[in-house]
């Protein structure tokens, strides 16, 4: 009897751990296993929402919440980001003052490559997101950097995502330095912040699809696939890291630096978790 009881306690503790963490490997460079983390994350969500096919997570909260999905599908029929894709294409193809253009800075002339970002850049020794690569391309060609969160950079990113739709995310961790960046991003994801003391995992793993007043946090699996997004609340297009800052403010914390090391590593971790899902950006959100 006693044995059964403690077994039960053990089982329920294990359940709690899996609910809040959903990552199976460790938190040191030696013990962390990104591929095990990714598979654990997938199986966590598939166990919790058995009716939702894995591929559908690219639709964020709408993969889980049938109520808002219909409305969203109507919005996607006349996508609010259509203009931004067109603008992005024009910007992408407009030559810099020196006669060169974005195409010269990217593999495959920048077409159909969204799924490889963020990537570990060996020569810089750091994670490079697509937006960082866009601004580095500008600076290398004698142009000024664009603002990070919205406007032109989001439009260019939207166009580049659009040319990559249906390509499968395939973020690589080629060496221990990249693994350390992954680990740092993983730590950020699970660390509580702000006066309200909440982690990304609190809301986007344990709290996914459970109401916080009128807001429904979506699953972290598939979070990155549809960015940049046109968000009704913003009334415009915004980048993934703009959203990171918003979530950090919501927990009454000081947001970390857009495109700083912390956010780049966080994006690297989140994107690795979504490896295997397809690019479907840009997207529309409430």
């Amino acid at each position, binding site marked *: 009897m006693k044995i059964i009881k403690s077994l039960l306690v053990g089982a329920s503790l294990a359940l*709690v*751990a899996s*609910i*809040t963490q959903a990552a199976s490997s460790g938190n040191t460079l030696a013990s962390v296993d990104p591929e095990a983390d990714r598979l654990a994350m997938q199986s966590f969500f598939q166990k919790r929402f058995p009716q939702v096919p894995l591929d559908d997570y690219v639709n964020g909260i709408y993969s889980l919440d049938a109520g808002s999905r219909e409305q969203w599908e109507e919005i996607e029929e006349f996508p609010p980001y259509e203009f931004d894709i067109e603008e992005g294409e024009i910007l992408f193809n407009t030559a810099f003052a020196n006669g060169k253009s974005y195409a010269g800075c990217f593999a495959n002339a920048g077409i159909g490559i969204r799924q490889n970002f963020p990537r570990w850049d060996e020569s810089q020794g750091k994670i490079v997101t697509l937006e960082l690569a866009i601004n580095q391309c500008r600076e290398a060609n004698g142009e000024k950097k664009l603002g990070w969160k919205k406007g032109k950079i989001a439009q260019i990113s939207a166009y580049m995502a659009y040319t990559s739709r249906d390509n499968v995310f395939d973020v690589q961790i080629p060496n221990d330095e990249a693994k350390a960046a992954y680990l740092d991003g993983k730590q950020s994801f699970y660390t509580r912040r702000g*006066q*309200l*003391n*909440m982690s990304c995992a*609190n*809301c986007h793993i*344990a*709290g996914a699809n*459970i*109401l*916080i*007043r*009128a*807001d429904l946090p979506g699953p972290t699996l598939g979070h990155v696939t549809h960015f940049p997004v046109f968000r009704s609340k913003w009334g415009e297009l915004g980048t993934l890291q703009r959203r990171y800052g918003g979530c950090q403010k919501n927990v009454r914390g000081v947001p970390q630096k857009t495109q700083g090391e912390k956010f780049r590593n966080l994006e690297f971790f989140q994107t690795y978790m979504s490896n295997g899902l397809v690019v479907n950006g840009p997207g529309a959100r409430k």
Partner: protein
Amino acid sequence: MRKSIIKHALLGLVLVGASTMTLASADQIAKGKALYLNKKAGNCIACHMIPDPDAKLPGNQGPPLVAMKARFPDPKVLRAQIWDPTVKNPTTIMPPFGKHWILSEDDIDAIVAYLYQY
């Protein structure tokens, strides 16, 4: 002898009941309610349903706050849950309202008084 012990115990219970009742003035309960509903204060309604007709469209991250007196006969336990829920459950999403200076001691007492109405 036995009878009188029981009598005393009962009297004690009544007194405890009476003391929580008298401690909570109408003002304090109203203050607790305002804090419960205010997005910039407790914002408990973001996560908890409570059967107060004014508490509309609650979230449901946490359990409904009902039958509070029966479930939390000791106000200290209720207060501790609001002060720092991570003591009981390290992975909880509920913020540590006292420990992180989100609410003052008086605020938390007022919310406790309000919760005991339900």
